[in-house]
């Protein structure tokens, strides 16, 4: 038995220790790893009617993955242009949402972390309370704001900015706003946490030596906040790329999110293997992208947990 386990049992007793360990194992293995593995398994099998499952046709195959790239066999096009386009658009849009969120949240996090006083607590509360409202309601509320006869259009037309209402939904502006808004806290809090532990004297020392504010942020605050920035960005990126409700409610009729395709495969087409393959592709691509960006900015895996 490794020493940390021995230590763990010594501290908690054999009974309690086994129970805790059992629950944790059940949680990670039973509820996360095994279902994901079975999804992975699904993704490599053909979609068969129940009687044929386990029969001679039930063999491992790459056809579900091929489908994403080449489309249906004997289809009119060389590539599955529709789905691939959705896939890449989703990734690009998720990156944009992440970058937009970072630009928006970094100043807020910095302000919250470096200012003292009671109003900061009220400020933080005002950020948190909207999250008591469930995701669907929040998304529909944004629809009310951004809709054709919504608050924003009424205002802009009333002010004479536009002659006719602007279609925020068709232009995906509502979607980006909704996604950005949905994950604001996940970006603010990790950054806030790190910056809060930054010694104010360091900022003052830089200032004392003549540094301008942009310089102070570039050389002192941002390098220090890097772990928080990377964990915020990772979470926002992963969750935006995997979001379903916001695209469903706020997306324009012609613009699908890749998760919606996955959903369709599972639900409308009852093609679980195909859905699983799409989901696996999305997951793996996102992970690779995150790892590549982390490498580019020299962030360690250990930093993310900070």
């Amino acid at each position, binding site marked *: 038995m490794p020493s940390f386990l021995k230590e763990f049992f010594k501290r908690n007793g054999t009974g309690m220790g086994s129970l805790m360990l059992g629950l944790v194992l059940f949680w990670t293995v039973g509820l996360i790893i095994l279902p994901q593995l079975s999804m992975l398994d699904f993704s490599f099998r053909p979609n068969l009617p129940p009687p044929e499952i386990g029969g001679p046709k039930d063999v491992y195959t790459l056809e579900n993955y091929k489908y994403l790239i080449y489309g249906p066999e004997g289809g009119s096009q060389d590539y599955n242009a529709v789905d691939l386009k959705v896939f890449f658009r989703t990734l690009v849009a998720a990156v944009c949402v992440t970058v937009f969120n970072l630009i928006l949240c970094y100043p807020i996090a910095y302000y919250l972390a470096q200012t003292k006083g009671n109003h900061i607590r009220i400020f933080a509360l005002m950020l948190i309370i909207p999250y008591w409202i469930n995701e669907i309601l929040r998304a529909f509320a944004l629809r009310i704001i951004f809709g054709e006869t919504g608050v924003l259009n009424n205002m802009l037309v009333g002010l004479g900015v536009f002659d006719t209402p602007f279609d925020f939904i068709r232009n995906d502006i509502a979607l980006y706003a909704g996604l950005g808004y949905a994950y604001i806290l996940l970006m603010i809090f990790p950054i806030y946490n790190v910056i809060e532990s930054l010694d104010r004297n360091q900022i*003052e020392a830089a200032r*004392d*030596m*003549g540094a301008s504010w942009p310089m102070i942020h570039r050389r002192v605050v941002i390098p220090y906040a890097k772990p928080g920035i990377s964990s915020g960005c990772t979470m926002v990126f992963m969750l935006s790329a995997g979001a379903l409700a916001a695209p469903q409610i706020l997306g324009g009729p012609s613009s699908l999110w890749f998760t919606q395709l996955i959903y369709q495969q599972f639900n409308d087409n009852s093609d679980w293997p195909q859905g699983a393959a799409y989901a696996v592709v999305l997951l793996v691509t996102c992970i690779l992208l995150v790892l590549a960006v982390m490498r580019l900015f020299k962030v360690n895996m250990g930093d993310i947990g900070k």
Partner: protein
Amino acid sequence: MSAGVGVDLENLWIRFGDFVAVRDANVNINGGDFFSFLGPSGCGKTTILRAVSGFLEPSDGRVLIGGNDMKGIGPNKRPTALIFQNLALFPLMKVWENITFSMEIKGASVRERRKRADELLDMIALPGQGDKLPSELSGGQRQRVAIARALCAEPDVLLLDEPLSALDLKLRQHMRTELREIQQRVGITFIYITHDQGEALTMSDSIAVMKAGVIDQIGNGKTIYNDPSTAFAASFVGENNVFRGKIKRIMGEEALIQTNRSGELVARISTANQGKMKEGDAAMMFIRPEAFALAPKGAKGTHFVTAKVNNEEFEGNVFNIFMEGDGGKELKVSIPNLGQSFEDHTGQNITLEYETKNAVIVPAGELAAE
């Protein structure tokens, strides 16, 4: 040494809401001087330094550097460099980057910066350590890096906020000498903040003693030590014995004081209070432990003190005698150890004598907390 840039505080007030952190401070610091603010924790030392460096605007009064009013000039535009109480080195930058950060701001090339860093590292006796991170240095080394970083900005005035407080005693004493040497070499004005009177006395050309936002006395170390102008200054700087009483008669520069416990004694009125004290005033007389000598038993007169010995200790260079003193405080006497025989007086009454010039009278006032 008056080539450097001086700093003047004129009627400086700093308030935080209703709280007055600095009350009407007037200080003239000569260019090229090593000037210390000495006072207990919370008396407003850091606040004054922040006003000089530009992080705080005075509520009233002026800060002048080199004769120019600094009002409205930000910390990044003042010819000062501040060394923080906790140093505030940048943990993610290498030592050489830390030191030359002020050059990076001005857009100097890496080669220039490296060269300057090497010069400064030589000066602070850390050659070849430029590529380490601050966390890889010892406390004293970090200290020196902070000094080098401040000096690299070529300030006219270097401000130091208790920079030695985090170091252990040995290193602190070593760094005192080193700081003083660096100051004399670069020849710029140093404003040093400390609550350690030993530090202030050994390094400074001039000292301002502060108490709760008020500057009690300004003078060189000898003046502050030998000729304090307030009860606080007398009791805060070095060890001192207090005798409370009333002025009975003024005799030129000296006065006869009727003490509460030790009868009538004669002492010198401190210079700042000459001509300001009159008969009947509540007063305090201070005599340093080392200013006493043993006198023949029962000797009487206005420079003899008799009291009961509580206990004695041998400290090596001195014998310390602790006697019943005034107001519940023990009277401490230190007799130099010159190899003489020394009998134990515990429990007995003994008589001490002092020279009038070594006893000083100030108006009664608040004493420094132990």
